[in-house]
């Protein structure tokens, strides 16, 4: 069809797209793969199974998982409230949801560290009343990642709740279902795929996040050191091999997550009848 169309400009547009994509993205990214070919399998395993490296993977994945779960729970409530209820200041809150997405991560990092540090506004409150220290602990990483995750969850759930046909709800309640039954059996199952997509997006972003985390984390090896920071540390020690091996592992995991997200979105579209 490209040949028979009367539309002009296919050749220049596609050539520029492919050349530019190769120069800026594909060639630089492929060096990571080629660089790691210089490592033998044993070297690779040796680097990855190092205790500090394994700890950083554990810290990154567990904090991203908890943060994505918390953000999914509250994000769902926020999306629900924004779509279904009207209250004073709703438009303002609606506009604010994207703030974590627009705010540079370094700014988010120093702001959250200032709020949650032991002498900070919330940090002091939490220590005085519950004896819980947030900053410079894994809990601080979770807080930063919740902040980052909010728009991912709210913005994937919101459109699905908006498009949701109320006729199904009406049918259920006219047949005598309670509000809770309608929610549990009609609404939630329909929104769940979108919620899962939002959760996966938040989780994938959280695992790779750097700027907003390092200021609040304390960055203690084995305890609160995240994978991206370990890559930077290896680079600063001119340990290119170590940095490459860890980065490649992260990259492969991210791509698997990306595949999963795409499959989820396909499932969501199919269920909502768009395919």
């Amino acid at each position, binding site marked *: 069809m490209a040949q028979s169309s*009367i539309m002009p*400009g*296919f050749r*220049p*547009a*596609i050539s*520029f*797209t*492919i050349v*530019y*994509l190769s120069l800026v993205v*594909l060639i*630089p*990214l492929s*060096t990571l793969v080629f660089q790691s070919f210089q490592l033998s399998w044993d070297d690779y395993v040796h680097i990855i199974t190092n205790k500090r490296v394994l700890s950083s993977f554990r810290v990154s994945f567990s904090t991203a998982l908890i943060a994505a779960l918390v953000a999914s729970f*509250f994000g769902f*409530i926020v999306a*629900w*409230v*924004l*779509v279904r*209820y009207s*209250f004073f200041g709703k438009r303002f*809150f609606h506009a*604010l*949801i*994207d*703030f974590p997405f*627009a705010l*540079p*991560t*370094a*700014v*988010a990092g*120093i*702001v959250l560290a*200032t*709020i949650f540090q032991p002498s900070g*506004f*919330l940090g002091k409150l939490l220590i005085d009343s519950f004896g819980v220290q947030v900053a410079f602990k894994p809990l601080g990483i979770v807080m930063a990642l919740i*902040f980052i995750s*909010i728009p991912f969850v709210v*913005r*994937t759930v919101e*459109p699905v709740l*908006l498009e949701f046909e109320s006729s199904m709800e*009406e049918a259920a309640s*006219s047949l005598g279902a309670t509000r809770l039954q309608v929610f549990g059996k009609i609404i939630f199952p329909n929104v769940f795929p979108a919620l899962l997509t*939002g959760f996966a997006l938040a989780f994938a972003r959280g695992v*790779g996040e*750097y*700027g907003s985390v390092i200021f609040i984390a304390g960055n203690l090896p084995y305890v609160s050191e995240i*994978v*991206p920071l370990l*890559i*930077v540390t290896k680079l600063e020690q001119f340990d*290119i091999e170590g*940095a490459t091996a860890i980065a490649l592992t*992260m990259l492969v995991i*991210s791509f698997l997550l990306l595949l999963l997200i795409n499959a989820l979105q396909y499932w969501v579209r199919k269920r909502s009848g768009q395919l």
Partner: protein
Amino acid sequence: MNAITQPVNPAKLVERQPLALQDADWVRWSLIAIAVSFISLFICLPLGLVIFKALSKGIEAYGAALSEPDALAAIRLTLLTAMVTVPLNTVFGVAAAWAITRFEFKGKSLLTTLIDLPFSVSPVISGLIFVLVFGAEGWVGDWLIARDIKIIFAVPGIILATLFITFPFVARQLIPLMQEMGNQEEEAALSLGASGWKTFWAVTLPNIKWALLYGVLLCNARAMGEFGAVSVVSGHIRGLTNTLPLHVEVNYNEYNIVGAFAGASILAGLAVVTLILKTVLEWQQANR
């Protein structure tokens, strides 16, 4: 990622539910209370704190923090980076959207997936790959050293890493919109004898201008605010390779709180402007 950057029609948010589908008052008010406190805690509080901290030592200290030479150099470098990367990625976004939405060809969905790649790469890895290519031990490292060309720990490296990070933003905004629009209008213009360029400027561009503007805006916000990738390739040389986010980091680590938050307030202001323009864009689309 797509879902996040797609504008939601705000007018649709205020539809009235039939009486039978309304939740009990106590449910409604407790959910609103939970949502509002959550957003206040995690979003309003950080936003307020940036402004409060930046002005904590008075407006003069704020002005002084922003007019010292290192801060000015950081602002200049940030503007330069955005001025190079945003136009390049905008031209790319339009070209890619044109090719993908106006023609059928093999490998189209692969191409669309590849364009999204930078979104799923950790910022630190985005910086690392440029070190692997251009660094002292990188692929072309010896060649560059022999010719005394500096890319890593210099401005070109910062620009390249930013190009990579902000690569998908414009294309991601345009592709779904142009897909939905179809190409009947352009075909009509072409069959009436308009040239390709004329069709683009007079038919396509007016239709996509708001989405294009929003894509440019997001691209610019990220180009000015990127931290992880830039921090890996920059080398943190004061006055030379520190962008504004790196300047914020350096000042914060040296306990220069006013300096850090003065820089941060500019970046937060940029984020707020982006949000306001986004809201305006949503209204524009809702009123159409």
